[in-house]
């Protein structure tokens, strides 16, 4: 085990190296690019025994990933923003064909207007594709979650692909200390992928990616829903196993000072770091406030959220995305499933810095009941 200062992109590449993928089809895009560069270097240096597939677009990258995974090997890919948009069609194929590979998404805003900076609109727009989505808060969590994502996805009860979502620039281009585990404990935690439902073997020919007429399609989709429901337990189990070997604890959600909180912030990704500091500052002033960090967005961990927020009065949900005409995606999901007074806040779109002042504003507004159900934070007046 070594500790080094590195970006979350490097941490993800290190996780991919440790997971020993056999095929890596990837196409570069800001702010994911350095992931693809590190992996190309690792393959060239024979640190990973994988086929690095150079492709001409993200549509090809994800198509190659699905094809490779269907042969029964472990696959890694990564993208961002418009790249993920171009993958959209095949994301559904990957989930429907039950190819359990891992994609790291460097969260970035969507055009137009063109913007390369961070928000979470790109992955949120893929929420119905049948992928697991886990949002991470720092570089260490990006590394750890990438390793866990393989174990979760490859679990026979799940067999759905996973998206590890890390905030562009705020994580991808920020250096901070990261612990890189040794290969041996990783191998113990994550043995080689042994595909039992779809693989390439001339002695056992099979046909994958077939047409299914109305007699079968409904059942195939229902099976995916069941797999997604199963994944709740599998994610928790995998986090527990990870903690046993590596000592770092994760879950579906991460509550912080929620037990006696009257108001709880609900958010995903790197923003949770700053909120935690603000929670401490508000607590020092006697405010009863907490944070619920949502790690697993799909599956949506309703029971875990319910448990964490059971004692509070109000929820302040901050979204770095917008579902036009209704509000932030996390806010609308919370509204649909959690029976608490919840208020939505849209912030940080296209890289707008979310400052402590912005978070204080969310708190004050929630405390005094906002005028609107969904409030945009940091809008310029003129």
């Amino acid at each position, binding site marked *: 085990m070594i500790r080094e200062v590195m970006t979350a992109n490097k941490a993800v590449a290190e996780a991919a190296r440790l997971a020993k993928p056999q095929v890596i089809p990837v196409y570069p895009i800001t702010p994911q690019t350095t992931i693809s560069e590190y992996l190309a270097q690792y393959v060239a240096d024979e640190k990973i025994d994988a086929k690095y597939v150079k492709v001409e677009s993200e549509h090809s990258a994800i198509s190659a990933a699905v094809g490779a995974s269907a042969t029964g090997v472990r696959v890694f890919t990564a993208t961002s923003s418009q790249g993920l948009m171009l993958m959209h069609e095949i994301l559904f194929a990957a989930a429907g064909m039950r190819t359990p590979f891992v994609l790291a998404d460097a969260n970035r805003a969507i055009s137009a207007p063109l913007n390369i900076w961070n928000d979470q609109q790109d992955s949120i727009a893929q929420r119905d594709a049948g992928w697991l989505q886990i949002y991470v808060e720092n570089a260490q969590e990006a590394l750890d979650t990438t390793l866990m994502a393989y174990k979760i996805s490859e679990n026979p009860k799940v067999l759905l692909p996973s998206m590890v979502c890390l905030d562009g620039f705020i994580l991808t281009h*920020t250096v901070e200390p990261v612990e890189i585990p040794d290969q041996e404990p990783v191998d113990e935690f994550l043995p080689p992928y042994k595909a039992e439902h779809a693989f390439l073997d001339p002695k056992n020919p099979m046909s994958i990616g077939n047409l299914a007429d109305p007699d079968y399609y409904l059942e195939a989709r229902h099976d995916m829903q069941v797999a997604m429901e199963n994944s709740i337990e599998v994610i928790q189990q995998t986090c527990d196993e990870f903690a046993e070997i590596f000592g770092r604890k994760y879950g579906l959600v991460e509550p912080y000072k929620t037990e006696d909180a009257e108001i709880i912030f609900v958010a995903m990704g790197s923003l949770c770091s700053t909120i935690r*500091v603000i929670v401490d500052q508000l607590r020092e002033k006697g405010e009863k406030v907490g944070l619920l960090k949502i790690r697993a967005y799909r599956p949506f961990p309703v029971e875990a959220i319910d448990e964490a927020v059971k004692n509070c009065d109000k929820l302040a949900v901050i979204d770095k995305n917008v579902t036009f005409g209704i509000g932030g995606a996390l806010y609308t999901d919370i509204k649909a499933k959690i029976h608490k007074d919840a208020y939505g806040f849209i912030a940080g779109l296209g890289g707008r810095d979310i*400052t*402590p002042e912005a978070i204080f504003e969310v708190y004050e507004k929630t405390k005094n009941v906002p005028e609107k159900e969904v409030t945009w934070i940091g809008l310029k007046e003129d």
Partner: protein
Amino acid sequence: MIEIRFHGRGGQGSVTAAEILAKAAFKDGKYVQAFPFFGVERRGAPVMAFTRIDDEPIELRYQIYNPDYVLVLDDGLLNVVDVFSGIKDNTEVIINTQDFEGSGEHVVHSIDATGIALDLLGRNIVNTIILGYFAKKTQLVSIESLIEVIKETFPGKIGELNAEATKKAYEMG
């Protein structure tokens, strides 16, 4: 927590400087964080980079608006961006310049990093040099760790030359 803001131009190595400083402080046993803010990703355009150093794990993830230190890699930027933006009474500003004189309102240190760079490196790359001066002035990071990280970042002859230039700036601090 110590917060440092770098001002430079795309291609001048401000982001690398912020990372080198973080890595050196990490070697000294500190918790660190460094990140860029890119306006536009173009050579010559003004860029900012940030470093945070603390004894505790760092959980703040937003830009630095009220820095303890400001490092300006190019005095031409003084006419383009407000490098003094948000500074506190005790904020110290280090500027690579040959002729800038502080207004007296702020603690401003001048170093002719460009002179050292042209002398020792043969080109106007000042990011490591200004860190040497910073290390001496502030004692926030050891020169040993700084030199070590510079050599790791730039292997071979370039690293040796940068290390030499950084030491020279350290002695001037």
